[in-house]
């Protein structure tokens, strides 16, 4: 193409803008709209069919649980945006949970303990990123291996000389458990602070992704690595930083879950193994990279959490909920994350 680009006639410019708008509507926006409609329908149906669904108490518990899942799925979203997958999240959650409980039992000041665990989480994330960079097709296996090792090491460390395996008992500071307890108060308001934290983090992240060069770099790398490198975006840096953030948010989730439950338990992360992926996928971020975003994941998280609450209200147990989740993923993904036929990929 010549440079400077010659002035085009206004009609074609307008047409191209219209098609751009249509493009926006057809890709990311479509999944977001489907998600929001699904959420609204779910809330409507649930409020009508389950007594007490539309109560402040229930809304509070949905939001609280959604905050945990939302924070855990934050890192997963970023990683998925660049085409990776982080399966170490549940293990980082479990390990942070028992390690923090362990640190609370020692003479280390609680705030320092929290800081140490957060740094550890980020370090594990960075390790995931560095090691999986050359193995991007197999990132999920690598993160799984790191996760296994971490959770094994953390349990060996905490159970050394104790006969309780898998659980750690210690005194959790009241201010810390207030952050994520169901009856926690935020500046006198009747919801736990973690909900506010999740909202603020989400707002900052969404703004940052859309209005910052580093945020756009995620999509550049996710869409086309060759193009991204031409724009002098370091694929390595982007890849490693998404995993670092993922490790950090997973460890924060693990620590908050300690405040929620009051006792350290390594299995606390297990439900998050596939649920974070489900939230990302239901929201509309394709695992192939380059599309979606955290706004979509928030919708996905809320859909899953409202659905869980609805199914519990209907008297379905955990097993049946999992089945419904699985059945939900297929049509949701089929709606917007279909690959083109092979004959169009050549």
């Amino acid at each position, binding site marked *: 193409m010549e440079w400077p680009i010659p002035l085009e006639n206004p009609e074609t410019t307008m047409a191209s803008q219209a098609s751009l708008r249509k493009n926006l509507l057809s890709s990311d926006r479509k999944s977001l709209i489907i998600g929001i409609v699904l959420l609204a329908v779910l809330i409507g149906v649930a409020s009508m069919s389950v007594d007490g669904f539309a109560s402040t108490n229930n809304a509070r518990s949905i939001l609280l649980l959604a905050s945990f899942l939302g924070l855990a799925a934050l890192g997963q979203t970023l990683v998925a945006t660049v085409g990776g997958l982080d399966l170490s999240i549940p293990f980082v959650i479990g390990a942070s949970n028992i390690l923090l409980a362990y640190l609370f039992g020692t003479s280390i000041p609680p705030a320092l303990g929290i800081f140490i665990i957060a740094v550890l989480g980020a370090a594990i994330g960075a390790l995931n990123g560095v090691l999986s960079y050359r193995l991007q097709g197999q990132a999920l296996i690598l993160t799984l291996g790191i996760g296994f090792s971490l959770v094994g090491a953390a349990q060996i460390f905490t159970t050394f000389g104790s006969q309780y395996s898998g659980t750690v008992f210690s005194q959790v500071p009241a201010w810390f458990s207030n952050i994520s307890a169901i009856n926690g108060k935020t500046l006198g308001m009747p919801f736990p602070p973690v909900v506010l934290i999740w909202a603020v983090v989400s707002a900052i992240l969404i703004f940052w992704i859309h209005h910052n060069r580093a945020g756009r770099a995620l999509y550049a790398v996710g869409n086309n690595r060759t193009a991204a490198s031409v724009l002098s975006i370091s694929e390595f840096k982007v890849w490693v930083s998404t995993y670092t953030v993922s490790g950090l948010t997973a460890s924060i989730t693990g620590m908050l879950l300690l405040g929620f439950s009051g006792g350290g338990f390594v299995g606390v992360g297990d439900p998050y193994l596939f649920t974070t992926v489900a939230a990302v996928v239901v929201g509309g971020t394709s695992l192939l990279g380059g599309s979606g975003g955290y706004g979509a994941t928030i919708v996905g998280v809320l859909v899953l959490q409202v659905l869980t609450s609805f199914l519990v209200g209907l008297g379905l147990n955990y097993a049946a909920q999992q089945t419904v989740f699985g059945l939900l993923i297929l049509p949701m*993904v089929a709606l917007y994350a279909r690959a083109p036929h*092979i004959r169009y990929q050549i």
Partner: protein
Amino acid sequence: MNRKILNQFNHLAVPLGLVVILGVLAAMRAPQTFTYVGLAGAVLIAAPLILAAMAITPIAIAGRGGVDLSIGPMIGFVNVTIVVWLGALEITNPFAVFAFAIGLACLWQFLLAMIIIYVRISPIIASLAGYMILQGVNLVILPRPGGFAPDWLGDWGWGTELLGPVLYILIAACAFWFVFQRTPMFQHIRLMGADERTAYTSGVNIVAARIAAHLVAGVFAGLAALCLTGMIGSGDPSQGNTLTLQAITALVLGGTSLSGGKGGVTGSILGAVAMYLVFVVLSSFNFGAISGYMTQLSYGLMLVLSLLISLLTTQSRPRTA
């Protein structure tokens, strides 16, 4: 030909080395493993994992980052349906049970292949959804472990005879793979896994190839479910779930790349054997309460190390989209 054998050996070097080292360690720490009865028990315990790892191998070779996460719950599904459904119908004929197990597993794999081919969503999402669905369905069919396997199948669980049905199943599975590996269809699957576009433009019927990969997986998975049922002698809705991660670990230890086109079941078998030997060696130490975590830690480290070694031995570049 010479070069081919050398290449073959190269990608098996890591798992083979692992098995030899661990085998020596196991022989020193737990010599009873290598007695007649010890081996019979080892074959019995390792068989479900070996067959599960074999099952996910053709799917991984078929490419598209295809790793069948649903394999564990699916084996569990066949296990609970043998005990509950066939138990209710009082079907105990070995032929009928074999046909049911393999047929059901193939049906599920066929369904998965159809979703991957025609709905065109990525295999990992399809099998993830399958994992969640079957995990729940198993618990609905059989809420807690219980029930009885048919007598002849439950008798496998004594595990005192090395030359028993479990070993014959393993040999038959290997023979089946040996024959399958020599068919043009296997070459098509490998080509498709290495480069689907090239395969398509060269006239390979990629729909048939993908279905074939999944059906072969179904045969192995059905056999894995039979061995699992024989081992525990009853139904267990959650025992199968743990097989997913273990089978993937064995697959990767065996040098099959999830990026497709490479690998074979020999590696997966060696990987599964290595995992069993790690378990044997670690349980020979007296770790007490932490022995389970030691196993977990070693599986994790083995997984990471074998991936990094595969990176060094093969010249793989970062994926370019």
